[in-house]
């Protein structure tokens, strides 16, 4: 089943065209990697899909689970089952992590027409998911991402993803700022969520992350377009040769 279908997507940021005709289809159960150098449009693609203000779609369409994704507000996209793990998670002083998780989960469940979780069930779920990610309960009382290390921030993203149980998770440069141990933990969290009904779009510059989150399909994105699509071997090829072939720069 096609979960996400992107057709001829063009988008501008601050009047500059960054995405210049993206075509991409992701089926349920698949893990797609989108690889590209800096400035290729990787993060723009993830923000456009999540609905960030300031990222203007000028052409094309995106169908997600049969819905016109681009007509939905960011919160409706989340409720429909889209999740973006941020490259730079935002700090929100004064809002505790647990309040944030509870508010998000009940908002999403409400929009999905599901019953709100009883406080006991919520705490149980939170505890279970935190244990899987090796997180300290102390973090729940702190402001969202405030004073978190790079690793803690990414674990927090993985925790939110586990709690919200999306249909499609977009991981935007999840490996940036992580040491190898933190990377393994976060990747473990992602892999625990892999299932035939769920898909992943893993956006990364480096092959390293893909050693831990094994993709089914790899796309190369440069100059705002998908230049090549292949199997996992394409990632290894890029690791050896770099992006020069696709960027037009001499290696």
């Amino acid at each position, binding site marked *: 089943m096609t979960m996400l279908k992107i057709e001829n997507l063009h988008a501008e940021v601050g009047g500059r065209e960054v995405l210049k005709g993206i075509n991409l289809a992701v089926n349920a159960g698949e893990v797609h990697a989108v690889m590209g150098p800096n400035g290729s449009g990787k993060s723009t693609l993830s923000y456009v899909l999540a609905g960030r203000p300031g990222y203007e779609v000028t052409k094309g369409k995106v169908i997600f689970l049969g819905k016109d994704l681009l007509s939905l507000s*960011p*919160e409706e996209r989340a409720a429909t089952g889209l999740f973006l793990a941020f490259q730079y998670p935002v700090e*929100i*002083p004064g809002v505790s992590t647990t309040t944030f998780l509870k*508010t998000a989960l009940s*908002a999403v469940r409400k929009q999905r027409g599901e019953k709100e979780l009883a406080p006991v069930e919520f705490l149980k779920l939170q505890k279970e998911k935190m244990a899987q990610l090796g997180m300290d309960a102390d973090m729940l009382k702190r*402001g969202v991402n405030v004073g978190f290390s790079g690793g803690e921030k990414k674990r927090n993203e993985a925790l939110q993803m586990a709690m919200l149980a999306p249909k499609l998770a977009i991981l935007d440069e999840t490996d940036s700022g992580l040491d190898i141990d933190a990377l393994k933990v976060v990747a473990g969290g992602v892999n625990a969520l892999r299932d035939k009904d769920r898909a992943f779009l893993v956006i990364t510059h480096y092959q390293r992350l893909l050693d831990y989150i094994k993709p089914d399909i790899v796309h190369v994105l440069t100059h705002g377009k998908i230049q090549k699509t292949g199997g996992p071997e394409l990632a290894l090829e890029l690791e050896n040769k770099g992006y020069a072939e696709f960027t037009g720069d001499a290696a």
Partner: protein
Amino acid sequence: MKFSLQQQAADEATLPWLEDAQKLGEQPAADWVKAMRHTGAEAFSRTGLPTPSWEGWQHTHLRPLTQTRFHYKVEPVKFDINALPSSLLKDAARIVLVNGQYKPELSATPEGVIVMSLMDASVQVEGIEEHLVTVGDLATAPFKALNAAYMHDGAVIIVKDGADITQPLEVLFYNAGDADKAPSLQPRCLYWLGKNSGLTVFERHAGVGAYFTNIYTGIFLESASRLKFYKIEEESAAACHFSYTVLQQQKHSSFEGFSYAAGGRLVRQEYQNLLIDSGISCNVSGVYLLKDQQCHDFTVLTDHFEPDGTSVQHFKGVIDDQARSVFQGKIHVRRVAQKTNGNQLNHALLLSEKAEASFKPELEIYADDVKCSHGAASGQLDQDALFYLQSRGIPATEAKSLLIESFLNGALAEVSFAPAREVYEERIREWLGH
């Protein structure tokens, strides 16, 4: 010739405000009360209301006040008893003032606390005169002068030496407006805490319709006494509220004041905190939530006379629509007031393009061994944080509320009494519309 013209203009401007004060002449009163009224009326007739050219009045314009003629009434006010709001806390004692008039039949007093009307106290309590006298220069404070001219209504609250009152006291000012004859209310209140005593007060201002309330509050804290003073200003949307609080603190006393301001059309809450001895702690903080055309002004002076004092002024405001806020805060540290620790912080969150916040933060320091800081800033909601919350499924309005609440929590942290914090949180949530 020129002089007499000016004089005439001043008379025309001040006369309506003082006219009703003559009615008080027919009432029995102590000579010193009569003298204070006279001094107040005289001072006011010389200045009239402040204009934008006055120091401290550049940003708060009085048009909502001056375009209505308000009437002072000395007779007991008629009101609908069912309209009184229910108590804030179920375990608190409550005293009620309606249109500034103390209503003993609606009031209950915690054990150890003496409450009486201002006029009763003026003849019954020994040494009350020096506690009821208007502090400061009337020539620069017309609202103080006006209140003095009408000295009659209000209440006196006294805690005896050594009495540690655990039951909170709610002091409700309920104001009933009148469409035909908008009332002018001029109550004067005194909180007088004896040595080593303690009290927790919720002072709440609420009402219906149009009225002008101009309150003078004296707070007198004797040595080592402790007052927690939680104000809730939720006046009617058409009301003008002016309050002048003069706090006089003796050695090792502590004052924890917090003010929630969300009501009224035009409001100015002015504090003059006089830390006249050493080792005093004084916290005057608050939150303000404004919308529509509201204008609110916090003007706070904290004056350190002696060493080892600690003072805080911590305010956070949220301003929507075309509302305007003014914050004028000053920490004054006199030459001998060494080891003073003074902190002032004011942040305003502007929710609309037409909302406005003005700040005048000041430190005036003459001692050389002090720690003082100030900061003031206004800004908008953090769009990145908003998107982050929305991307987790939280609807935009709820996400905004969450961010606003968390912003205000910064100031609410100054409130040490949990039930007070809950009262404020509930009101903030209500203001945010859920």
